[in-house]
């Protein structure tokens, strides 16, 4: 070969001769190699299956439970094996995964990746800061504001001048109505960059939200106070008149009047519990007028205690009762009674009397939060049956 190399001028023929010689040498070499069948390739009939499993050609990621191609396993090991990677590298690998998921809006997967990165126990504060910051962003987009805030704050712990994390913390605080924290974060941002436009806007928005929330709380407190004082005045008015209630336990004078006691149990009267009128002087009652003859009742939702029974009858019979075939139910042709359930008897009402006078009668008890009256035609069989009906006095335990 040396003589060949020494030769400086080659003719074309000599070159062709050399090429042919080298070709022949190569053929001889190949022929000399062991002959074996190629068995490592994919079986011809299942080549598509095999291709789907190959990490370079697979169309979808392996799901849990699938068999993994050894090459895939190998790649996984390379990327995730703690022995193959330093902690920092591992953490950064997970970070890249997480960022990839973020780009594709797979926020929950991103959270997982960043979490794995954090678990890698890297000690590098910059890496940790980024992992927490990014996980905070992932949480933010799925509206886990508490987790997002906590992560943003951890990021700031590792890197106190991390503006992105601070801004994220400010936004989270705003969503969580943590007004003071939000304004603190915004102020800190503005200290570093006094023209941070978003921080200025958020600072203002946060302040407005805080003021509104506080105002609403004050308004609610004022209204609660008003309701309570209205209730106290009502209660005082009732106690003053020494009104008796059916459902009241035998505590006598010291039994307190509760809102429950005053709640009308009759459905049509439900929304009209007894109350004081605007002047605060006259009680307004819900009342039920029962017709034993027809077994149904009329309801009057708001009767002032100064109205007489006659007034009530006039209203009740302003239009004749549909079931009243004999036109017996007219003012002047009916008697009105109330039941004394304690004793088990009925009392006839003097219709010229005002409601408050009737309510003050010894045997009158408010029943089911309302005034209950019975209306029967004067001197009729219905009346007689009604009066003599068997009644048992209420027993107290």
């Amino acid at each position, binding site marked *: 070969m040396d003589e060949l190399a020494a030769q400086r001028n080659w003719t074309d023929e000599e070159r062709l001769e050399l090429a042919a010689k080298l070709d022949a040498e190569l053929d001889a070499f190949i022929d000399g190699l062991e002959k074996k069948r190629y068995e490592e390739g994919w079986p011809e009939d299942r080549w598509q299956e095999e291709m789907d499993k190959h990490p370079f050609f697979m169309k979808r990621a392996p799901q849990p439970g699938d068999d993994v191609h050894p090459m895939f396993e190998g790649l996984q090991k390379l990327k995730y094996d703690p022995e193959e990677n330093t902690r920092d590298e591992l953490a950064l690998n997970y970070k890249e995964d997480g960022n990839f998921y973020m780009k594709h809006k797979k926020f929950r997967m991103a959270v997982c990746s960043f979490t794995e990165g954090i678990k890698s126990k890297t000690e590098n504060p910059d890496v940790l800061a980024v992992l927490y910051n990014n996980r905070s962003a992932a949480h933010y987009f799925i509206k886990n504001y508490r987790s997002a805030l906590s992560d943003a704050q951890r990021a700031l712990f590792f890197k106190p001048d991390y503006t992105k994390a601070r801004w994220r913390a400010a936004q989270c605080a705003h969503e969580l109505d943590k007004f003071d924290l939000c304004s603190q974060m915004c*102020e800190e941002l503005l200290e570093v960059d*006094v*023209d941070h436009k978003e921080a200025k806007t958020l600072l203002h928005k946060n302040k407005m939200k805080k003021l*509104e929330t506080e*105002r609403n709380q*004050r*308004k609610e407190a*004022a209204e609660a106070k008003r309701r309570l004082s209205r209730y106290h005045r009502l209660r005082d008015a009732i106690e003053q008149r020494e009104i008796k209630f059916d459902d009241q336990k035998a505590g006598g004078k010291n039994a307190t009047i509760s809102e429950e006691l005053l709640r009308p149990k009759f459905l049509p009267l439900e929304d009209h519990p007894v109350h004081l009128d605007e002047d605060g002087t006259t009680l307004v009652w819900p009342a039920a007028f029962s017709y034993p003859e027809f077994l149904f009742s009329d309801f009057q939702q708001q009767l002032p205690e100064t109205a007489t029974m006659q007034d009530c009858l006039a209203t009740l019979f302003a239009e004749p009762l549909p079931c009243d075939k004999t036109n017996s139910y007219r003012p002047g042709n009916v008697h009105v009674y109330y039941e004394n359930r304690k004793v088990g008897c009925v009392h006839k009402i003097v219709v010229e009397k005002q409601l408050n006078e009737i309510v003050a009668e010894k045997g009158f008890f408010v029943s089911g939060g309302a005034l209950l009256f019975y209306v029967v035609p004067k001197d009729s069989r219905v009346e007689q049956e009604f009066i003599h009906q068997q009644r048992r006095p209420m027993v107290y335990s």
Partner: protein
Amino acid sequence: MDTVKELVQFMQPNQRLDLKAVALTHVLGLTGSAEGKSAILSLDEMLMAIFGLTYDENPTVAKDAVLSLINLTAEEEGAVQVFRLAKQVQPTFPIVDVAAKAIADEQSVLADPWSMVLSNLTRVESLVHEILDILERGDQTLPRLAKAFAQLDYNKKKCKLHYLAPVFCNLMQVPRGRELCCHNRYKLLEKLLPFASFEGSVVRRGGTIGILKNVCFDAVYHDVILNEQDSILVAILQPLCGPEEFSDEDNDKLPIELQYLPESKTREEDPDLRKMLLECLLQLCSTRRSREILRAKGTYEILREFHKWEAKVGRDSDCLLACENVVDILIKKEEEIGLDNYKTVEVPADQAEKFVQEDAEYVKTLLD
């Protein structure tokens, strides 16, 4: 005079600690009296020695030095002299910078004393421009002072920094000071305003109300005051509001911070401060536009309740008069007033005297 001169040698930085301390204690005692003060102020070397000792490592010595400066600057003459000398000496004693630095330092135990010195110095109108120059040199200085003032737990060595309120108030005596503090970029004013109702310190509260007064007396700022933000108006009205209930419609007129105030709300207890607030409102009544805004924001309703309270509880006749002055303008219709700007009216001198006399007579009749 001679004693004072003798003390100077013991007040040099390299002296023994006990000598320094005793000499300084003596000097501090001297600053408590008028003769002592003038003796010290007449001796430049003594002042220089005091400047030097404010840097001393020993905290008691340093503090006593600053306390001496407080007393020496308490009056205008002393303040001017101290300021000028600090500039003249070689090397210069940058008194304002030192003060600002101590105040901005979270760990400084001298922050409060230095703030009092600064408060004394800024009170002198002739010095304010130069002091503003110095403070403006570092563009974070004023914002940092505002932050130290607004954040109640700023100083970790128990300094309260209440005296920053009069400092800012004094700086705003001049237009340039007002401009700096009202400048939109830093929002300094917004940080200072909430303290007009600060119950914990009359110095802080009074200083902030002084700030309000300085701003209101400059018509240029009336628009700033009465823009949608309301923060300045709220700062003025809040101390005048009480626990009385307003109807829902009246409440809706008021700025949001003043709506539905609870039973526990109390009014400003110092009558001088109440009067200052009412004077602010009076200033704001000078232009038509401002009057209309004040009416729209429920100022009359607030003053109506205030007047009842002042007559029964507050019982200060100057405040009652000041209140009535504002109410008189607010209840008039604009056609009756017919003027766009009250300040452009010229009042002849003899008439003016007569009005003042009438007011004084009237004031006497206000309280029974």
